[in-house]
């Protein structure tokens, strides 16, 4: 089961074997707050399924998602290596399952495993790239492009059937719910998705890709460069 997570899957059998007694599997429950801003991170999550979001709360009462973590990543690892404080709110956006470990145990393992340490640093680099891309995307791309980008990412992590309300999507994207209503109808009419009260089905992922901005594809390139670079670029 642990191998469903990209980071854990990259450990050797010996490394994963040593880590396994300290890992347990938990359910990720929709809406569950994993950490509040400036709160101590109590567990490090390696999702097998589901999605965890990093959310920045704004003074006016709004919130916006700045990073998304799924089976391709880890949540709380960098905090485990340092002071264990979360810098923003972390919430389960899509229910699923994750392997979890105590931050101090992970830190001990990372100190003794160059491979694990390197994987955690590489993922943090990718996560930083995701946050930077999202900042650029939110500043320049329109709601339709951003929603399609977001759907592409969800499709990669969860498949074509998503349980999400427009209210939630709007919060994640930092727009008003009515803007999501408007764009969702446009996507529906063009055959990209079907939507019925909280249930989104991605009908044509190629069209979603065509309507999205370039951000998700750029991130996939970053992923390749970071985790599978050509020999000349390896560090």
């Amino acid at each position, binding site marked *: 089961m642990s191998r469903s997570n990209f980071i854990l899957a990259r450990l050797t059998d010996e490394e994963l074997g040593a880590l396994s007694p300290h890992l347990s599997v938990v359910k990720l429950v929709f809406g569950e707050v994993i950490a509040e801003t400036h709160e101590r991170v109590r567990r490090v999550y390696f999702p097998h399924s589901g999605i965890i979001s990093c959310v920045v709360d704004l003074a006016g009462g709004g919130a916006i998602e700045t990073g998304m973590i799924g089976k391709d990543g880890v949540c709380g690892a960098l905090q485990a290596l340092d002071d264990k404080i979360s810098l923003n709110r972390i919430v389960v956006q899509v229910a699923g399952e994750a392997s979890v470990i105590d931050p101090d145990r992970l830190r001990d393992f990372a100190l003794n495993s160059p491979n694990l340490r390197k994987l955690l640093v590489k993922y943090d680099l990718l996560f930083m790239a995701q946050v930077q891309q999202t900042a650029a995307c939110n500043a320049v791309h329109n709601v339709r492009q951003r929603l399609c980008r977001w759907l592409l990412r969800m499709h990669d992590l969860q498949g074509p059937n998503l349980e999400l309300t427009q209210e939630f999507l709007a919060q994640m994207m930092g727009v008003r719910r*009515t803007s999501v209503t408007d764009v969702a109808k446009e996507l529906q009419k063009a055959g990209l998705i079907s939507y019925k009260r909280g249930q989104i089905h991605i009908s044509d992922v190629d069209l979603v890709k065509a309507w999205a901005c370039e951000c998700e594809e750029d991130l996939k390139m970053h992923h390749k460069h970071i985790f599978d670079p050509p020999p000349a670029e390896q560090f």
Partner: protein
Amino acid sequence: MPHYLLHIEYLDERIIDEEGAEFASLDLARSEAMAALRELFAAAVLSEGKPVPRSISIYNETAEHLANVGLELVLPKGVLTDW
């Protein structure tokens, strides 16, 4: 809390709000409709060819029409002179 539906009205089409949202009062639903209409108008202005919404109609769950928020309420005076 009462549940309101905010339908978007274009010149030749209505985008139905199937989900709706809860607001403590009709005034708060109206405020949300005004902010939403501003955002939709801005998106239309910034896009190439996207139609401009004319208004947002507010309904309750029993399909009773409660209010209408038109562009004239959210745009500065004079913008719609030639509308």
